[in-house]
């Protein structure tokens, strides 16, 4: 049970960089990607800050060399960019050589096009090509097509903000059970009016830079991103003499079963998820060297997650930080973005700071890591918590 699954490649596009190297550079230089929204025309513009990828859709189409008649949603395009980088980094030149699948998480899917052409679909011929891009599985189908994955296991998970973490979890289990030799796992979500206004009505959007785990936190900044990992079986790693970046060592999913959107006060779901992940990894809390927290900077999340972390780690708290202040909350993609950051942390033995933190929360004495810190890291625990009470934890490790 405790043997990890090898990660041999990763790719990412987020508000702080268009690839893994750019993201790492921004992380260590404390450059956040939070701005006003430019690519979406919204009346909320002056009231919110977002983690936006500044390429327009036309620029993304050009970058990917898509034909003019393509019907890619923005989610799909971001996904393809990140997934291709992951495949390249894994040194995969023949995708068909091994049984390869893809598991992707998304919550927005093709909603960006649906909200743009909602009524036009009924009468205008031109945008009708996007009707079929609406459903959540479409972006994954397109990523598979772009990677040349055919006649294989391709699926999509949508469990709100824990989607990508769950995709990674399923991928690890598919490898362990021998159902696949290789699987691309992660998630993609673009910004949309739908999510901007949805979170606005919940009154959990900050009008300024988000401040995870701070007493005076005002809410989250929405972000858009995509990130994917390549997981490979031991057989492939050995046969291809692959360099392993890190391992998916443990994972756990649980449901808070408390409220459709809010987390329970004591973080029951998150506590359970962390417990399960530690069990699968066969590790004790004291074995965890760094926690990449979900830390969205909403009042509810940070309190609930903080309490859950304390319940697990008690007086053996390792350093922890949330990287949401850099990227914003990228919803379904968050678990994959933070998987890439967790692997980078392990590779470079560095803990990324929790930006914008000033004041300790009054409910507990948790203080996140606020400066960049060099530390020998062997294990990183990453949390992703979402609507519907969905709580997920993935543990990454240097050694199998």
């Amino acid at each position, binding site marked *: 049970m405790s043997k990890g699954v090898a990660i041999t490649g990763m790719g990412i596009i987020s508000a702080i960089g268009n690839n893994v190297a750019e993201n790492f550079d921004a992380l260590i230089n404390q450059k956040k990607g939070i701005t006003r929204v430019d690519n979406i025309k919204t009346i909320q513009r002056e009231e919110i800050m977002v983690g936006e990828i500044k390429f327009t859709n036309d620029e993304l189409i050009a970058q990917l060399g898509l034909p003019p008649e393509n019907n890619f949603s923005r989610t799909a395009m971001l996904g393809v960019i990140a997934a291709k980088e992951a495949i390249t980094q894994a040194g995969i030149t023949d995708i068909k050589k091994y049984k390869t699948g893809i598991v992707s998480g998304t*919550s927005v899917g093709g909603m960006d096009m649906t909200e743009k052409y909602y009524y036009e679909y009924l009468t205008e011929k031109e945008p009708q090509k996007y009707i079929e891009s609406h459903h959540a599985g479409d972006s994954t189908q397109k990523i598979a097509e772009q990677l040349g994955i055919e006649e294989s296991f391709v699926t999509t998970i*949508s469990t709100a903000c824990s989607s990508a973490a769950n995709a990674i979890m399923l991928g690890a289990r598919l490898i362990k059970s021998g159902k696949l030799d290789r699987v691309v796992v992660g998630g993609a979500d673009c910004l949309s009016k739908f999510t901007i206004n*949805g979170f606005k009505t919940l009154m959990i959007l900050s009008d300024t830079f988000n401040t995870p785990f701070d007493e005076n936190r005002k809410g989250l900044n929405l972000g858009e991103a995509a990130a994917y990992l390549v997981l490979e079986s031991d057989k492939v790693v050995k046969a291809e003499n692959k360099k392993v970046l890190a391992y998916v060592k443990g994972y756990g999913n649980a*449901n808070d079963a408390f409220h459709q959107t809010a987390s329970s006060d004591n973080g029951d*779901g998150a506590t359970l998820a962390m417990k399960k992940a530690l069990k699968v990894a066969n590790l004790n809390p004291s074995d965890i060297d760094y926690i990449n927290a979900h830390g969205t900077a909403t009042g509810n999340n940070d309190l609930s997650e903080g309490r859950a972390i304390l319940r697990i780690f008690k007086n053996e708290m390792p350093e922890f930080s949330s990287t949401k202040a850099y990227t914003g909350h990228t919803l379904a993609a968050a678990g994959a973005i933070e998987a890439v950051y967790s692997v980078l942390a392990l590779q470079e033995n560095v803990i990324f700071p929790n930006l914008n933190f000033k004041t300790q929360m009054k409910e507990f004495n948790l203080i996140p890591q606020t400066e960049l810190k060099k530390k020998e890291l062997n294990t990183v625990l990453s949390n992703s918590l979402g609507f519907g009470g969905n709580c997920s934890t993935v543990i990454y490790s240097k050694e199998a």
Partner: protein
Amino acid sequence: MKKVYINSIASISPQKTFESASFLDDIIEYNDNVIPAFDPNYKEHIPPAAARRMAKGIKMGVVASKLAMEEAGIETVDAIITGTGMGCMIDSEKFVSAIIDNNEQYLTPTSFIQSTHNTVAGQIALGMECKAYNFTYVHSAISFESALIDAKMQLENNEANNILVGGVEELGAHTTNVHRVINHVKPEPVTISEVLNSNTEGAVFSEGANFFVVSNDKKDSSYAELLAVETYNTLQKDKLSETIKNFLEENNLKPEDLDLVVLGNNGDVDFDGYYNQLSENIFKNTKQVYYKHLVGENNTVSAFGVWLASKIIKTQQIPAIVNLNDIESAETNIVLCYNQYRGENHSLVLLKKC
């Protein structure tokens, strides 16, 4: 590796399938190209105040899951795994249209909250106070099969003993209209008996919820053993037969070993060819049934195919209304379900009498 069994089934569909005592013996005749689910009395299962807030998909999912739990005779499960290709369409449409109609003003959060794809799985967990593993798959026509594969892996590895798996889909008026203009919905109303030979593009759109308790614990009341599930994002027509043969071979079976195939024909002149070539070739001598003429097409309707297969295996009865050919088989032991939607997202589910 442990064996996996279907221990209970529950279906809410355009037919009166939610009453487990009957088996397609009182067919509702439709003459339409969009058919809604036939509603059970939701109030019997959900407190009225809660039911008022729920869109139809949530109600169908919650009630179908309750019926499946009741039949299995268990109070809780080790995982809740749902599939929904389109998700909560009604609340999604409400929120998008409100954004557009009111220029992003005067919005309330309820429909946004309930628009999330995992709403049904979350509501089931809330209702059961079940803190276990909770996943939702949203990959078009293989959403349900993805859930089934996930459940099967956990049960085989003994990570769980009982898992609630289901597929749910609700009709959204705008989404249906939008699919009319691109000819995904049949252009004219059709009756049940006409669907297959309608010779037109598109399908009869529908909705429903089919839930199952799957377990690695065999009971006297178990419906079937779940031998294998496989999905394919793409599959060329000329490779279909070979793929099915390989799939059967991996399970030490040949096409002639099957007693029954459950096919997903929906009467779409452009895509039924996938099924027809099987009917005419490798399954020429095998008993064939279909069901979409009764319950329409939606992204998780293939779960109804599994419901049908399970029910046939357990009762050893095949309602005449589902016959696709006249072949009689003395006993129904091994059943294969095959489905695809618009030439993509193919699935194979293999069941065996237990």
